[in-house]
């Protein structure tokens, strides 16, 4: 047993253990930025090679790295100077962010209902499972018909695709609460609301954040699918037009910006998760030595 005169054990012990565990593999002795850079360059080379080897008449179908980077530069200039791509990016950003926020709010609330009430578990959940199994993008034309060609139909599409993982993970998080701790709360005469607020929701947070991260990625998918099928002036529409005129280099450049948008939203959620879940590290649940 650790004597109480000692301070709390530091985190360094864990990384020591990790080091011992992995020291045999060469990939762990290379700094990670090196392995990432090397693999990235290799893939760029492969891309360049395939584009170069394309027969001349098919070359238009696959823009090489050089063409794409040149187009990316032009696209960036257009965005910085407030051109039509900047406008498209702004529209898509709004669709994605509003769709995500709506999905997060609605998904969380429904997830609590499903995870906390018997009715939700026994009656609502089966419908959600069935609905989740449907190909959700197939609903895009319906939303266009209902909400028009403007941003609204895209927001709804983003919401529709993104809110399932939030519901399911929130409910799963609430189910996962430790039974003994629930009993402890009962023994403290905790009200249902207190147990939810002080035990179940904090316990469910790691699950909820997993759902939110999926939702961040899915909301970009939803907005772009909505734009492909419902027009408008967003990046999805610009990509569709570029592809129609076989400007594959521009398609790639615009996809890079969609990727940045998705990554930013994902990163924001991951950052919030890190701030809130300081207590939830993978090593916390490792059995620590009692010696």
């Amino acid at each position, binding site marked *: 047993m650790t004597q109480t005169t000692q*301070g709390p054990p530091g985190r360094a012990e864990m990384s020591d253990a990790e080091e011992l565990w992995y020291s045999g593999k060469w990939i762990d002795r290379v700094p990670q930025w090196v392995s990432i850079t090397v693999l990235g360059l290799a893939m760029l080379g492969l891309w360049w090679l395939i584009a170069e080897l394309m027969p001349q008449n098919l070359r238009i179908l696959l823009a090489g790295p050089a063409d794409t980077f040149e187009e990316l530069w032009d696209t960036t200039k257009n965005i910085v100077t407030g051109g039509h791509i900047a406008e498209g990016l702004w529209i898509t950003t709004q669709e994605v962010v509003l769709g995500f926020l709506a999905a997060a709010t609605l998904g969380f609330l429904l997830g609590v209902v499903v995870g906390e009430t018997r009715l939700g578990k026994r009656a609502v959940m089966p419908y959600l499972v069935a609905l989740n199994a449907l190909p959700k993008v197939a609903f895009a034309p319906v939303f266009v018909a209902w909400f028009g060609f403007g941003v609204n139909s895209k927001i709804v599409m983003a919401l529709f695709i993104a809110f399932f993982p939030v519901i399911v993970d929130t409910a799963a998080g609430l189910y996962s609460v430790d039974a003994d701790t629930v*009993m402890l709360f009962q*023994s403290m005469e905790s009200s249902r609301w207190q147990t939810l607020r*002080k035990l179940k929701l904090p316990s469910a947070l790691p699950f909820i954040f997993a759902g939110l991260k999926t939702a961040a990625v899915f909301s970009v998918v939803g907005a772009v699918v909505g734009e492909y099928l419902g027009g408008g002036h967003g990046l999805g529409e610009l990509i569709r037009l570029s592809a129609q005129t076989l400007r594959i280099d521009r398609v790639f450049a615009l996809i890079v910006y969609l990727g940045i948008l998705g990554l930013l939203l994902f990163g924001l959620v991951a950052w919030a998760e890190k701030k809130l879940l300081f207590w939830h590290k993978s090593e916390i649940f490792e059995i620590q030595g*009692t010696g």
Partner: protein
Amino acid sequence: MTESTDRVDRAGQESRPVNAEVARITDLSKTFHRRGVKALDAVNLTLDHGTFTSVIGPSGCGKSTLLKIMAGLIPATSGEVLLQGRPVTGPRQDIGIMFQQPTLLPWRTTLQNVLLPIEIRSGSDAAQARSAEALQLLELVGLEGFDHVYPHELSGGMAQRVAICRMLVTGPAILLLDEPFGALDELTREYMNVELQRICRERDATSFMVTHAIPEAVFLADRVVVMSVRPGRIAEVVDVDLPRPRTLDMMTTPEFGGLVRRVRHSLNMGTEVGGQA
């Protein structure tokens, strides 16, 4: 519930505390109708102030069910539990409970975890006001200076000490311990048993512990209640008259060995009878 508060503190003396009854279990039975299992059958038991009672029995003998009924967490089918003269009909502030797992909230510091029962019952302000008391408890269990540490920085034994503080903070009349050190390694477990004995003596606590380990049951208890299976009933009550404070060295004495043998024998009889029934 009158005599317990103004009793003269006898901690440190070798004499047994005066026989003030804290809890009385009368003809307690529990049947789980859905599974058709009679978990407890006519259990009678009296717990006197300042005594430590261990309950031991094979899996499925209903000892955990008994503890949960005493805690007011599940209702009895018939019979009753009287605690400080009042029947237990639900969870109460004068009941302290502790489980095999520390069940600490990982997002709360040690101090916040200890104060949780106050916060749930009386709000954050009330909990804040009791901080000094909670810090004293942490000192009692040897965790001074750990009040702002989060559970993941504590060892298993330390976490269970925090759970002890959380159980004591409401000043319960009875401590219900459900295999409290069952998840710890053997050495830590023995050490924690010595610690628990010290804490119970200092607080003059009335304790009721469910366990699987015979030496642990004997080491801590004034009385070992041996239960048999299907239906769960009391097979034998073994009085442990070893002097206190008990030390780990005493576990190798013939007297201790004799008591362990007696409990084991009683356990074997109970299992056989249960098996034939």
